[in-house]
């Protein structure tokens, strides 16, 4: 929808030492782990593991009882299964940023989306409000 391959690629190359090109993430595999699919979609869309680095996912799963201010705790065995899946399939975003919506590629891709549009869909966690096939890993439109 907002995708401009050349501009995005150039900006990526210019800004980052190890550029994460946004087009790597326009299409990612759908979540293949049943527990992850169920538990991570309970309060928001289940985000695919490729959107954050392994370091970031590890930090997120370390404190599910305070998950961006909410209690998302899980039984230990379930948490471990899901964490292992996310870490094994992680991408290579900025390790210090735990919010997908603060990653550079995200900001670049959404630079033309105004606050009003984000407000209308309530939260940036609602990828599928605009990307109708987000839960299948398809973000191209």
């Amino acid at each position, binding site marked *: 929808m907002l995708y401009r391959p050349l501009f995005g690629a150039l900006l990526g190359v210019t800004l980052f030492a190890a550029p994460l090109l946004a087009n790597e993430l326009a299409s990612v595999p759908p979540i293949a782990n049943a527990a992850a699919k169920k538990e991570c*979609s309970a*309060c*928001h*869309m289940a985000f695919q593991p490729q959107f954050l680095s392994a370091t970031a996912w590890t930090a997120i799963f370390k404190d599910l009882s305070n998950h961006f*201010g*909410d*209690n*998302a*705790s*899980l*039984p230990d065995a379930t948490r471990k299964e899901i964490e292992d899946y996310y870490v094994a399939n992680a991408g290579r975003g900025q390790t210090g940023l735990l919010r997908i919506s603060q990653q550079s590629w995200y900001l670049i891709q959404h630079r033309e989306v105004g606050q009003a549009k984000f407000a209308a*869909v*309530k*939260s940036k*966690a*609602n990828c599928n*409000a605009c990307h109708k096939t987000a839960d299948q890993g398809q973000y191209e439109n």
Partner: protein
Amino acid sequence: MKTTTLLAATAALLAATPLPAWADPARDALLADYAVQAKAADPAFGGFSAARGQSLYATKHADAAPETPACQACHGEDPRQPGQNAKTGKVIEPMAVSANAKRFTVKDDVEKWFGRNCKAVLSRDCTPAEKGDYITFLSAR
């Protein structure tokens, strides 16, 4: 022997209530389990109350997070309608058993959500009596 008496008392309590078409053995077993726990916590426990459950569902708590002052903040004033996560906007399937027959049929899920949401809304765990009241209310809606 004591457990047997309690179970018999619970069975009598449950039998006194006419079973609607969407009764479910797993939900009945869960309620029976909460009844045993409630009786153990308070010997004066005399059965669950849909009215108390309704009050629990609707009561607003000033010390809760601003987005989630009450159960109905996310689950909606009418539990037969879908709700919406107050932070992410994700649609939540109806809580009322008449509209969603799967409600309260998987013990681990029920305990997971009471564990998370009672802390968020009431700033404490719910008692077994409160859990039973809540399910009784929503089973009657």
